[in-house]
């Protein structure tokens, strides 16, 4: 499932809503990305996250399909927020559900790699007196 939303989310509830569908899930790996207080030696005040929503859904679906072809995935959840986000806010949540640990770990890392490379989101970081559009390094 893919959710692109402004709102915060509760990771425990999001996981339970999916976990309760599958009694064969033995392993869940989750990644949460946050807005940090500093970046490149600048003190961050907040970020504004812009998204091309239609394309983001399409590209994230593709990434999940690719992950499913490589690992035994029972289910998968991606939540990506957009809009104004203060420091300490969650930005992204990727959770992979599988029978065994290795599948959930590797697919979660794989999805994060491709999300950072292909998903059409752009961070505009606000500092004390300026702002800057970021570029992912990978």
């Amino acid at each position: 499932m893919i959710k692109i939303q402004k709102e915060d989310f509760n990771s425990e509830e999001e996981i339970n809503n999916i976990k309760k569908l599958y009694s064969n899930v033995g392993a869940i790996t989750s990644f949460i990305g946050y807005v940090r207080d500093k970046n490149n030696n600048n003190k961050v005040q907040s970020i504004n996250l812009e998204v091309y929503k239609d394309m983001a859904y399409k590209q994230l679906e593709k990434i999940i399909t690719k992950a499913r072809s490589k690992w035994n995935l029972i289910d998968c959840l991606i939540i990506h927020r957009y809009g104004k986000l203060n420091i300490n806010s969650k930005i992204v949540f990727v959770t992979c559900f599988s029978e065994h640990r290795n599948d959930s770990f590797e697919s979660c890392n794989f999805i994060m790699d491709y999300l950072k490379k292909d998903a059409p989101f752009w961070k505009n970081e606000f500092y004390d007196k300026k702002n800057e559009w970021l570029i992912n390094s990978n």
Partner: protein
Amino acid sequence: MKIKYFAWIKEITSHEEEQIDSNEINNLDKLKIFIISKYPDLKKHLDQEILRFAVNQDYVVENIDLNKDDEIAVFPPVSGG
């Protein structure tokens, strides 16, 4: 066709969306030429291969034909996650 601009590209074009209807702009290369003539500040970014293009929500690198109801997006490298 509908053209969408994102992030700092949008700051150069001054709007996030426009409709272009010309029978002559029938492939992506022609659209690129049209865009940099309309927004000369975009030229250096196109030359430096910083601009990304998507047609109907998929990345496109090669030149491809464009149709009237296509949605083309122009944007800089992404920074999500």
